[in-house]
């Protein structure tokens, strides 16, 4: 009997030992890449770089709505549909913490992109650099930090008081600089506006130093960052901070001293003879410093109710006429003549006489590239900085604004008798030139201007509630350190 027991016990032990030795086979997912191997090959790393841009291109962000909101907060468009899904509250300047499509979605889309940048930067530091080599790694890191800067800058324009209000001392954004891949992160309070701008500039300085001078093709020069892209964004950032001297320093790197104003190193940015070409296929002129590419491949277009053409255009089945041009807005300005190409080619009047913006007019799925920065903006940023810095009428500033105007309306020459007139002329030119490109809100904010009334929407003084957006309710309820505006 004892013998039997022994047999039984030893067999049981044997089984247990056998099972301990046996490795637990682990099916590796075949349709996903695990974190452990995500930086193992140059291909995967490049795919992650594209993913960062893709996140920025989200329909809720630069793929559409961010640009739309930038314009409809301003006075130049009239809401036609009273539809909350398509920004009626943004237009009416009465967004709430729970406004899903604006306040909540833009917040999450931008931070989604920021996290991708952070995850990528961490992964390159840990492994990726050794896979692709230092040179290419520096390029990629430059791209990631460029996009991170763009995201933070874009968020500041909606969710924080302008830099001009208290020199950046007001609450800014939660500043996340490390990637979140799993549990174990903690709540995060808001940094000040100035602290965020400091980070943005640090990222852009890094990007300028590490991005390639040019990319491999015209398409990549427009859709992926290169050195001049970082410089161009810096002119925008400094302008928003009202650091005009820095705007001039940066812009001079890519703008020649005299006409024709072009970039002489890196990608040869220049104004195109016909502005309409910038908004037409293949969308890859040297005037476009950065655009979000769109194709008809599934997932590569803006998606339902995000498309610029859907909002701003209306011709047959193309466009939903969500927003028409405000008859009392910029189109009523007499100095913008009827012969201006930007009127003749880029504005459309429908059968009932309403005017619509015609910069984006490809039919569904709306594959117009979305402009993020154009060279004309750099020229006007420089012009404004010069005009504000130098007393009197700065000749180069006047030449720059005329370069933009005369490209579209050769018959008109802008003249200015005083510094103030010059500045106003430049601001006016910006409004005309960038109509429907999302810059109007930035311009109103950086100068702490009252947002003018339009249609049924009242004006908003900088002190009024609703001048900037509230913070997403999800963030407030879940991030215990977060504070509302």
């Amino acid at each position, binding site marked *: 009997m004892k013998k039997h027991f022994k*047999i039984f016990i030893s067999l049981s032990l044997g089984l247990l030992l056998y099972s301990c030795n046996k490795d637990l086979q682990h*099916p590796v997912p075949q349709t996903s890449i695990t974190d452990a191997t995500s930086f193992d090959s140059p291909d995967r790393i490049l795919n992650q770089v594209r993913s960062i*841009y893709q996140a920025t291109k989200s329909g809720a962000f630069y793929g559409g709505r961010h640009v739309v909101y930038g314009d409809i907060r301003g006075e130049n468009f009239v809401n036609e549909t009273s539809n909350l899904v398509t920004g009626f509250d943004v237009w009416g300047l009465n967004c709430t913490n729970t406004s899903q499509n604006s306040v909540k979605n833009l917040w999450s889309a931008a931070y*989604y992109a920021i996290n991708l940048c952070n995850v990528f930067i961490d992964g390159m530091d840990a492994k990726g650099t050794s896979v692709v080599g230092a040179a290419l790694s520096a390029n990629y890191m430059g791209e990631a930090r460029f996009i991170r800067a763009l995201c933070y800058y874009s968020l500041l324009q909606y969710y924080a008081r302008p830099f001009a209000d208290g020199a950046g001392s007001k609450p800014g954004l939660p500043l996340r600089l490390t990637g979140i891949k799993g*549990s174990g992160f903690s*709540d995060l309070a808001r940094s000040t506006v100035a602290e965020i701008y400091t980070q943005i500039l640090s990222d852009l300085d890094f990007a300028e130093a590490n991005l390639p001078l040019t990319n491999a093709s015209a398409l990549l020069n427009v859709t992926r960052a290169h050195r001049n892209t970082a410089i161009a964004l810096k002119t925008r950032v400094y302008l928003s901070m009202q650091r005009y001297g820095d705007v001039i320093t940066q812009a001079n790197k890519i703008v020649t001293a005299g006409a024709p104003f072009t970039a002489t190193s890196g990608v040869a940015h220049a104004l195109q003879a016909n502005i309409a070409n910038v908004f037409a296929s293949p969308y890859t002129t040297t005037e476009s410093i950065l655009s979000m590419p769109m194709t008809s491949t599934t997932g590569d277009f803006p998606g339902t109710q995000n498309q610029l053409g859907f909002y701003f255009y209306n011709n047959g089945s193309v466009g939903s006429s969500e927003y028409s041009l405000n008859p009392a807005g910029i189109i009523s300005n007499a100095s913008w003549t009827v012969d201006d190409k930007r009127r003749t080619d880029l504005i459309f009047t429908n059968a009932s006489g309403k005017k619509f913006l015609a910069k984006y007019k490809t039919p569904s799925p709306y594959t117009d590239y979305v402009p993020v920065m154009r060279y004309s903006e750099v020229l006007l940023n420089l012009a404004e900085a010069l005009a504000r810095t130098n007393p009197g009428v700065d000749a180069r500033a006047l030449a720059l604004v005329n370069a933009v105007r005369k490209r579209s309306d050769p018959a008109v020459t802008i003249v200015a008798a005083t510094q103030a007139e010059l500045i106003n002329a430049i601001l006016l030119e910006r409004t005309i030139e960038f109509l429907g490109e999302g810059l109007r809100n930035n311009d109103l904010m950086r100068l702490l201007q009252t947002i003018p009334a339009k249609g049924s929407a009242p004006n908003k003084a900088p002190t009024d509630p609703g001048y900037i957006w509230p913070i997403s309710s999800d963030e407030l309820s879940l991030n215990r350190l977060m504070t509302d505006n």
Partner: protein
Amino acid sequence: MRKVLLVLSALVFFASQVIAQKIITGKVTDENGNSVPNASVQVKGSTTGTVARSDGSYTITVPTDARILVFSAINMADQEINIGSQAVINVSLKTEERALQEVVVTGYQTVRKKDVAAAISKISAADIENLPIPNLAQAMQGRAAGVIVAAANGVPGGSLSVIVRGVGSISAGTVPLYVVDGIQLNTGLGSINTQNNPLNFLNPNDIESIEVLKDAAAASIYGARAANGVILVTTKKGKVGKPRFTFNSFLGQSSPLGKVEVLTTQQWYKLRVEALVNAGATPASAASTALSNLGLPANTPVGKIDSLPTYIWQDAVFSKGVLSNVELSMQGGSSNLTYYVSGSYSKQTAFIKPTDFQRGALLSKLSYEINDKITFDNSLSLSTFSQNAPYSIGNTGFGNPAYSSSMILPINPMYNMDGTYYGMPGSGQSMVGTFNHNILAIGEFVKYFTRTNQFIGSGSLSYNIIPELTLKTFFGVDYRLTLDHRYQDPRVNDAFAVSGRLSDQVDWNTNYISTTTATYRKTFKDVHNINAFVGIEYRKDQNQWFEANGQGFPSFMLQYMSAASTPTNVSGQWTASSTFSQFAKAGYSYLSKYVFNYTIRRDGSSRFGANNKFGVFHSAQVAWNAKEESFMEDLRAISDLKLRYAFGQAGNDQIGNSLYAQLYGANRVYGNGSAINPTQLGNPDLTWETRQEHNLGMDIALFRNRISLTVDVYKKTNKDLLLDRSLYSTTGFSSIRQNLGSVENKGLEFLLQVTPVNKPFKWVSTFNIAFQKNEVLELYDGLQSLPGDASIRVGYPLGSFFVAQWAGVNPATGRSMWYDINGNITYNPTAADRKIIGDIYPSHFGGWNNTLSYNGFSLDAFFQYEYGRIRSDGQFQQMMRMAGATVNTLLYGYDNRWQKPGDIVPVPRAFNGLADYNSAGWGSGTRYLFKTDYIRLKQVTVSYDLPATVIKKFAIENARFYVQGINMWTYTKWPSYDPEFTGDNFGIIPQSKNVTVGLQVKF
């Protein structure tokens, strides 16, 4: 190993040939002296044996050193006789006392019922014989106390939910673990058609028994898969004896349980005008609108309206279905080889065309004693089943006949004069009203077909090292291929514009399992009974599918992808998981009085995060067979008494295959360039949901088992529930999956069996009832309700409705009223006015079975019932639009509607656009929530066994004729078709009434 075994068996065989032999003859009879045919006669401890002839006589040649003969027969107790010097041995076998010897299949072994201390429900073959059900899980409905089996609808072979002792999970799976003959099934769906069920592969008549391991202690031996209960299915196997054949066939018809009465064209016109006028139209414009809704000119005279035809679409769509089944099985065996082979074909068509189910199944089981130490078992189940699925389920399709037949405007005819379908696209005709699809044409033209081929097979080798110790190794495969072919004919409305649409999908499911156990069973000194085993197990599941879609077919006659002019998209996926387990049981009983069982299992699963890869699950069970005590001996009235207590743990691993991992997915593009991005947050702590349960039970039998009662009371807590915890967006994600929260289920189960009359007329009545209470104990971060689902609230059951209460109709205005949170009347209830109003799980439910038999006649009547469940009646709601839209409506609504101030009625005034002025939606709040309470005569069977004198002439053993009815009678207040369903009751094919006649012959 195998070689060693072969050599061993050869040696044994050789040895047996050289030993001297002698012949023994005799006769086997029962206690009444009747001969027992086919009894097995075997030399104990050897493979030498024979089978008695039909008159019970036998002749056996045994070795001279053989000491004991073992006699066994079906339903008889085994008997051992010392051979000594006898040459003639006559034996009288006793009918087995079932209650004493009853065995129960538990995890990895079969034990005497006496030694069970946990809560297990058993369903035997006789209980479920010849039921026209495609799905084995349906057999448990109403028969296992505490197990809710709910068919989603009446689609044959359709989806089904089985919930053992209440739901214990919020976002992980709630499906029990099914183990068929040792193979753990993969129950993932493989079909894009909505109605498919992987449990359809088995012919229920091949089932010997179904055991439901209900409490965590019983299920615990299955570890991380066992939290939703375990259902063990044991198929029939052969018994020693000459070949015995069973032929069985039934044929029948299914028909709708009922129809709903809807309006005639004239009534609808009148109600439509009323609805328009109530919404502010002038009588003249209302009349002209109503006429145009009917496709008539505005100047149609009243006389013409009165003579408009009414077509009753329900009559055209609800027809009769066919049920048929034919099967033949053969079983038998010699002393060392037994076999069971069964083939079957069954077909069921629903009463709404073209929905059907067909299955051909083959089950082959073989058991071969290679020698007295080694046994090989083999089981093969091959099955193919096909289904024509309904065009759609739910409220999404106007082409769904179950949904729209009651709502098509009655002025629309079905056919043209020439017999072609009316109102087809492109014909120039169009049906009026919202429901403008000719559902008869869709039933004929559209093809939604699913074919499933399934193979489940296993082989095992048992090695009795010493009589007490058995080593068994088992390997099984569950392989399933599901093919979907969804063809939308170019002639039907939904596909006319694109000239037909086709979607083909193939899904492969491969699941294999390998189990090795060592079992030790021994009784020491006649009092200490040891039953212990250890085992290891490895299981891997893999699923892969791909799908292709195309459109643009040149003709409806070309129905395959090669004819599609435009491929629209393709897709595919792969996923897998594996589990490695070690488990052990130690069982001890003293004189069968005191029973102690302890089980432990350690599971390592690829589904769990690195920090929680391995889970350990324990159970401890004690039982006291009080009747075995000497002081109980004199209490003759009590024939059995047992008290049990068990505590156990189990896990729910149905949390998805790699949710813990931080993954990058390739589902993005940037300017036509591919991109990969993090798709989910990693959580190395992610793990199983844990179930812990206390179970206290009692089994008592009185008056020689004439009354027996089983009572179980339990409290189970499921914690570490899988939940998506919301994240703030600055993390870049919106949620992370974590183990949070807990849910409790408490319940009480009774199973009572009485035999009021025994002979010659016999009546056996079995009644079961289960009471159940579910409560969410805790969410996370102190939340009182889930952010994403306000109906999941701490202190309330899962599946609750959280809505505002409807307050009826205002007699003054005819408007719908609701209560606000303070009980005041409001017309616009807000989110703050919501309250918990019942839930979707019954509070008490069960079944009642009666078998009456007399002289070969028997009557079986089985009732099932469910109380305390609330459901939203979507179909009723849609049918109660009261001409507020251009759909037909219920006569009930028409007859009971508010028409003038002072009317005290249940139905508000008709109103165009449905929601009355400044009012919440017409279906808001509790208005269309109803109790599903029902009692149903689920099954009634009358059968007649031909008397022995008659069948002898035909040399058959038994012949039985039977007539069976399913769903013959129902008591319910449910307003639309039928209360037995899951979901929201939108456009589902309801249950049907089935009548079959059958014949079963054994020979």
